[in-house]
Structures are given as C-alpha cells and as structure tokens.
C-alpha cells in the first residue's frame, strides 16, 4: 500500500532519509533503514575530502534548525568503501557535489554502479563559493551540471534545488530540460542567521546557515506545488516533515516521495515508522489504495 516506484527505484514507503543527515557511514544508513525509512540518501560527497566548517555548525531557531556543516565528507574514494557496506536491499541515493560539471561527472562515475540513484546537490545554502546553491541559483549552470551527469551516467538522476531563488520554476524547468529524472524540493532555506545577544557574534562559525524544520514547510509545499504545475518528472518533497500529515500535504502538493531530516532531532529515529503507520491508517480511512493516487491532488 505504501510502496513507491521512483524512476524505477522501488521503495517500500515514501519516506526517505534526507541528504546531510546521518548519512556519513554505512552503519548509520543501515540503521536508519532498519528504523523504517523507505530509502536513504547519503551525505553529500565530493571528489576530494572536505573537513567542513568549524563548530558551531548548528543552532536551534523557532521551530527550525540553522546549520552550516560545510559539506564535510571523506571524498569519493573513501566514501565508496562505505557505500559497499550498505545492505543490498536498501535503495540508496548518492548525494554528490562539485564545483563544475566535470567534477560532478567524475564523482558520479565512481559510484553509479553501487547506488540506485544520484542526487545532485546544487543547492546547499552554506557551501563554499562555486558549490551548492551558487550553481542551483543559476539556470545555465544547473543545466550544465545536470546535462553532463545525465550524459555520463546510466542511473536515474535527481536534481535537488534551492528555494533561495527568485523563481524556482525557472530552475526546475532547466533541470528537466537537461534531462534529470526527478527533482528534489527543497534544500534548506535562507541562508539564515542567529546572533548571540551577549557577545553580538553570529553563532555559526560560517555566520550563515540553512534553515530546516517545521518553520520552512509552508515554503517547501509551495515550491512543490508550483514546480508540479510546470514539469513532468516526479518530485521528491522535503522540508519540515515531522508527521504523516506533512507527508500527505507534500503528496497532495505534487511530491511522489518525501525526505525526512530534522524530524529525527524532533521526534527521534522512530519518526519513519510512525509516519508510515499513521499514513496507512489515514489512507484506509480516506479510501486511498496507493501513494500514487494521492500525488498532486491539490491541483484542480
């Protein structure tokens, strides 16, 4: 009843672990799957190792979290070893990043045989200049990255977009035109900032970070709704999901699957199973037989 087929990737339910959360080791990804996630997305990794930013890298905000981890990862060579240790039955999405189409392609080629899908992080709002949102805020750069990876790879490719643009539809259309198989909406919002009152200092070492959690859900829902009206490819909804109602809202807005991150902080790892259990009850009560029936219902 809850199963989803996303670009040929079969998931037992529509709740995926979002990129950047508990995704740096195979053990952790296996564990999240065993807590109920339908699929897991790795932490974004790149060609070379990256230490990320100094702490503080996270601070809480009203109904949200502001983080600037800084894309820390051991580099693709090292990360491949982790990927091999993920259990076979788990649908794995590799989140990758780089500063040029070539870099993206190199990383993608390294791992495409051992993952089910690739998600392009062209949207991290606290990335170094030239990475993350710097790409995804530019339709042409987005196009080039997606096109290059699509040409080079045989696995499905999702583009994860940033909401921090004047018109997300424009970027989504470019990503689709470049051939992406799915679009993930949205990366964290902002950037956002928290200043300490006693010292007058921005708390995060990077000053700015991405806002996630329930605070951003109304923005994420709008992005999914808006993009659903202009593209054909399936959408993966993410941003502020903490319960089954949020998942339903994303499905209605037009998402074919969803991702969950910050809710692990708010609700614990049981959040995946809880959402799926509640979702089943909801679907029975409302007479839905499959997730698919619910996708895009908010559109006339």
């Amino acid at each position, binding site marked *: 009843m809850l199963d989803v087929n996303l670009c040929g990737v079969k998931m037992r339910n529509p709740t995926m672990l979002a990129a950047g959360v*508990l995704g740096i080791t195979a*053990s952790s*990804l296996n564990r999240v799957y065993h807590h109920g996630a339908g699929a897991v997305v790795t932490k974004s990794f790149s060609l070379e190792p990256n230490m*990320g930013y100094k*702490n503080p890298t996270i601070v809480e905000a009203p109904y949200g979290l502001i983080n600037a981890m800084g894309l820390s*990862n051991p580099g693709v060579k090292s990360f491949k070893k982790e990927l091999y240790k993920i259990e076979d039955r788990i649908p794995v999405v590799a989140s990758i990043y780089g500063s040029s189409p070539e870099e993206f392609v190199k990383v993608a080629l390294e791992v495409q045989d051992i993952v089910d899908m690739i998600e392009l992080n062209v949207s991290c709002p606290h990335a170094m200049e030239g990475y993350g949102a710097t790409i995804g805020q530019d339709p042409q750069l987005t196009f080039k990255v997606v096109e290059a990876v699509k040409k080079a790879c045989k696995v499905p490719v999702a583009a994860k977009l940033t909401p921090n643009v004047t018109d997300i539809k424009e970027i989504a259309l470019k990503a689709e035109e470049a051939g992406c198989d799915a679009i993930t909406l949205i990366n964290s919002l902002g950037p956002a900032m928290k200043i*300490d009152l006693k010292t007058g200092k921005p708390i995060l070492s990077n000053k700015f970070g991405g806002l996630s959690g329930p605070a951003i859900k109304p923005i994420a829902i709008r992005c999914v709704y808006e993009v659903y009206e202009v593209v054909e490819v399936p959408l993966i909804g993410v941003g502020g999901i903490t319960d089954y109602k949020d998942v339903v809202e994303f499905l209605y807005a037009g998402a074919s699957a969803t991702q969950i*991150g910050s809710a692990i*902080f708010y609700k614990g790892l049981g959040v995946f199973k809880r959402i799926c259990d509640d979702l089943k009850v909801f679907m029975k009560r409302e007479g839905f037989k499959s997730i698919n029936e619910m996708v895009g219902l908010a559109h006339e």
Partner: protein
Amino acid sequence: MHVPKILEIKRIIRESSDVKTLICPWDGKSPVPGQFMMIWDFKDEKPMSVSLIDKTNNEIGISIRKVGPFTSRIHKLREGDKLGLRGPYGRGFTIEGHRILAIGGGVGMAPIAALVEEARARDFEVDVIVAARTYDELLFLDRLEKTGARIFTCTDDGSCGFKGFAIDRLKTLKETYDMAMVCGPEAMMKGIFLELEKRGIPGQFSLERYIKCAMGLCGHCCLDNTGWRVCVEGPVFWSHELKMVKEFGEYKRDATGAIRPLG
C-alpha cells in the same frame, strides 16, 4: 532551545600542569555524570564532559586538558571571561549495582569524579582506580577523598601508588563488583573491557568521537557497525553494547568522516 548560553566563568581550578577546571553557573537542565556539554569559545565549539555537578549552587565544572589550539585558548581564559555552553547531551552513566568500580585514566577522570560524587552521595559503595602517567597528573584526589570512596592510585612511572597501567591495577584487585564505569584513552578502555568481560563484571564506558551537532543529526559520531550516535545513544555505552561496536578500540573517524586507526 539548543542555543549556546553565554555564561561567565566563576572560578578556575588548576588541577595539574595541563588540566584546568572551569566552574560556570548553570541554571539549565542538570547534567547526569557522563553527559557532555558543547563549549563555545566564540571561535570553535567542542564537546567536553562534565566533571562537577553542584546542584546546590547551580554550578557545573568542565575539566579541560591542554592538547591543541582550542584547549590552549580555553586555558588562557580568566575568571569573569565568557563562554558559551549548550547541553547537557547524550546518555550518561547509570548508577546501579551494590559495589561499583570506577576507573579513570588521565583527564578521563573528569566524568568519573562527578560520577563518584553522585554515587557516594547516594550511598553506593565505590572503589576508584585513578590512573595517570605520573603523580602530578592524578586528578581530583581531594574531591574523591571527601566522598569516602576507596581510592587506588596508579601511575605509569610509579611516582604515586601502584606502578603500571590501570588495567594492571585492575588485575590485582580481587574484589568482585556489580558494575564498572570507565573513562580514559580508548586503548586503555578496550583492555579493561576485555578484563571485565573475563571476570563477568558489566561495564559502562565513555567514548569520545568527533562531534559536530551533538543533536543526533549530522552523523559524524556514528559507530560501526551499529550506527549508534555517540552524541545521543552514547557517549556512555555498556559492555554488552560495545560487543557490537566493531570500531571500539580499533578506529575512529576524523572531521571528514574518514576512518583513522586509533594511535
């Protein structure tokens, strides 16, 4: 809210040549021995375990050994200077059993000191092995003596008490214990873990890993193969759990997430 609280350092205690304890006022949630705080010096933020929990005066103490740039900056702070604290985080020690053996090596004595004080205040019978390289580095002896716990010091160079490592001292103790609680270098803890297993004494061990968020999200501190987060399911793990932690005593991960064998 998980936001650093900015506090003034009330007192600084020089515990040894390279360890200082900073005492701060704390009106937040009271830590359990073994839990840790994130300490922000406005340049960087690191996890530090709590060495003193004074619920009467609403104070906590953090004991820090000078080992790198961050801890060197901390050592330069004076009373009245500000620090940012958030926490407490993680799972601490569970004080259970009739006779307890506490073992602390080096600055690993920090959570052990808080633990012994609490266990003795609750009238548990406690023996403590206080281990260090040399006499000057034996920590918290005064505080421990006040608790009435039985103290076994041991030093690598024999300058105080037993000459040798904590594990050697443990082997000479023929008493039986219901529970052991251990904090120190991981190699030391691994040896003690094996010895305790042999003797059938359940143990609790405080692990240290690279911690960024402390909120169970970033995944940097996850252990192989269980995926447990040191910042949420730990830092204290029980013997029966550690049996499943393949990396215990073997390796940890650096800031990039890459595996580094234990030195």
